[in-house]
C-alpha cells in the first residue's frame, strides 16, 4: 500500500518527466525497427529469391539474437560512444532477425501457382513483386515488425546504461535510490504498457493488411 502511495506521489510530481522519457523510449524503439526494416525487408526478399543465401543469413541473425543485449550494447558503445545512437543501433541489430525471417517466410508462402500465373500473364519481375508477392506477404512481414517492436521496447530499457535515456533511466534511478521500488515501477509499468499497446496496434494493422478479405 505504501509503495502504491509512493508511486502515485512520484508519478503525479514527475508526470512531465515520465512522459518525456516515455516518448523518447518509444522513438528509440521505433527508429531502431525502422532502420532494421529498411535493411531487413529487402534482405528477406533477396534470400527468398536466392534460396542458397537463406540458411546463412538466418543463422547469422539467430547468432546475433543469442548475444545478451547488455553485452552487445557495451561493445557497440566502444564504436558509437555513450548516447542514444548506441541504443538505436543495438535495437536495429536485434530487429533484423525477426523482420528478415518473417519477410522470408511471407515471400516463400506466396502460392507458387499464383506467381506462375502472374508471370504467364505477362508481368515483369518487378510487377510480380509489387502486385503479387508483396501484397500477399505483407501481413506476415507486419507480424515480423510487430515482434521486432515489442522486443525493441524491451531492449530500449537497457539503453539507459549507455546514457540513452528513456524509461530505463527512471528504472536505473530507482535501483540506485534507497527504497526505490515506487520509482522502478514508475519506469517499468509504462514500459510494459507501451509494449502491450504496440503489440495490439500492430496486430490490428496486421489484420487490416491481410490480403484475403473475409467478409
Amino acid at each position, binding site marked *: 500500500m505504501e509503495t502504491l502511495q509512493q508511486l502515485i506521489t512520484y508519478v503525479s510530481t514527475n508526470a512531465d518527466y515520465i512522459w518525456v522519457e516515455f516518448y523518447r523510449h518509444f522513438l528509440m524503439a521505433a527508429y531502431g525497427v525502422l532502420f532494421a526494416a529498411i535493411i531487413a525487408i529487402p534482405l528477406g526478399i533477396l534470400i527468398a529469391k536466392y534460396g542458397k543465401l537463406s540458411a546463412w543469413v538466418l543463422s547469422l541473425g539467430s547468432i546475433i539474437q543469442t548475444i545478451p543485449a547488455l553485452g552487445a550494447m557495451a561493445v557497440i558503445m566502444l564504436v558509437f560512444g555513450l548516447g542514444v545512437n548506441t541504443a538505436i543501433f543495438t535495437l536495429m541489430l536485434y530487429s533484423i532477425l525477426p523482420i528478415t525471417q518473417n519477410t522470408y517466410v511471407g515471400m516463400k508462402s506466396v*502460392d507458387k*501457382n*499464383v506467381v*506462375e*500465373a*502472374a*508471370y*504467364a*500473364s*505477362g*508481368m*515483369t519481375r518487378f*510487377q510480380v513483386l509489387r*502486385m*503479387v508477392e508483396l*501484397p*500477399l506477404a505483407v501481413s506476415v512481414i507486419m507480424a515480423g515488425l510487430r515482434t521486432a517492436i515489442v522486443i525493441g521496447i524491451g531492449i530500449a530499457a537497457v539503453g539507459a546504461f549507455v546514457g540513452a535515456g528513456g524509461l530505463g533511466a527512471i528504472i536505473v534511478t530507482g535501483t540506485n535510490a534507497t527504497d526505490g521500488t515506487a520509482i522502478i515501477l514508475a519506469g517499468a509499468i509504462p514500459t510494459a504498457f507501451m509494449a502491450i499497446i504496440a503489440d495490439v496496434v500492430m496486430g490490428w494493422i496486421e489484420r487490416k493488411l491481410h*490480403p*484475403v*478479405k*473475409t*467478409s
Partner: protein
Amino acid sequence: MLEFKNVTKRYSSQGRPAVNSLNLKIEKGEFVCFIGPSGCGKTTTMKMVNRLIDISEGQILINGKDIMKQNPVELRRSIGYVIQQIGLMPHMTIKENIVLVGTLLKWSKEEKDARAKELIKLVDLPEDYLDKYPHELSGGQQQRIGVLRALAANPPLILMDEPFGALDPITRDSLQDEFKKLQRELGKTIVFVTHDMDEALKLADRIVIMRDGEIVQADTPEEILRNPANEFVEEFLGKERLIQGRPDVVTVGQITGGSPVTIEPQATLKTALATMKDKKVDALLVIDSNRKLQGYIDIEMVNLNYKKATTVEKVMETDLFAVTEDSLLRDTVHKILRRGAKFVPVVDEENRLTGIVTRAALANLLYDTIWGDGMELEDEKPKLRAL
C-alpha cells in the same frame, strides 16, 4: 499458327533430354491435346511456347515469328494461360483477376469494366460476382474465371495445363462442354495438356501422344482409336476404350450376318409364306436373279393381301433402306433406331444383297461392349455364354 521445329529441351547437359527434337505444326483454330504419362515432356513442351521454360535447341514459331526473338513479357501478354491450380490472385477481386492482362497493358478503367462484364456473361455467372474475391467462389467457378482471365486480352492462342484436372467429375464435364463450345465460337487455337484420355478424346481436334520427350502419334481422335500407332498407344488408350471406341469405327461389314432369307419377286405369296414358316422368320428380302435388292415383304403384308394378289412383286415394299458394307456402324445404328426398322439389308455398290444387320446383331455388339470382347468371359465364367 504455331510451329515446333526440332525443339529440344535439356535440363542438364548430360542425360536424356526432356523434349527431344519435336516437330509439330498447329493450325489456326485447332484444338490440340498433348497427352502422355507423367514426365513425358508434355507440360515442358507447352511451357516453352510462352517461354516459362527456355528452349535448348530448335525453334518455336508463332505466326512465322521466332518466339526467342520476342520480348518474353510481351509474348506472354499475347498468349492465354490456364493452369490446373487456377492461380487466381487471392487479394484481387474477380474483376481485377479477369482483366489482369488489361491492367498490364494499361487499359482505361472503362475498358476494363466493359471487358469484365462482357466476359463474365460468357460463362453464365452473374455480374455481381465481379466484386467478390476468389475464395468466395467454388472450384468450378474459379476455373471459369481462370479461363476468362486467359481470354481477356483476346489472344489467338491459349495454353492450358490440365485445367479441369482438379475439379470433380460433374463440374469437369460441364466445364469441358462449355469450353469446347466457347472455343468453337471464338475460334481460338488451343494447346491443351492432359493425362485424361477421355478428356482428350472429347475435346481435341488432334491428339498428340508423347513418351520420353518424343511424339508417338499425332492424329485425330478417330484415327488414333482406329489405328493406334503401336502397342504403347494401345496400352495408353486402354483395352476398354478401344472396345468402346469400336462402335465409332466398326463398319457394317464386320458384324453383318451372312445369309438373309430371300425370295424372288415372281414367287407366289403362298411360297413366301412357306419360306417364312420354314426359316422361322417374319420377313423376306426380295431379290432378282442378279441378287439385286428389290424390296422386302413381311408377314403382315402377306396376310393383308393374301386374297387380292398372287405374286410377291405386287405386294412387296420397295422403299427400303439399305447400307453398304463400309458404312460406319454408328450411323447405321442411328438409322435403324430412328426408323424403327427390325433389320437393314447390306448391299454392294451395285445394289446386290450381301448380308443383313439385324437387331440381334446389334444386341450382340452391345453385349461385347459391356462385357468386354467375350473371350475373357468365356475363360472365367464358361457357363455365362450358354445362358
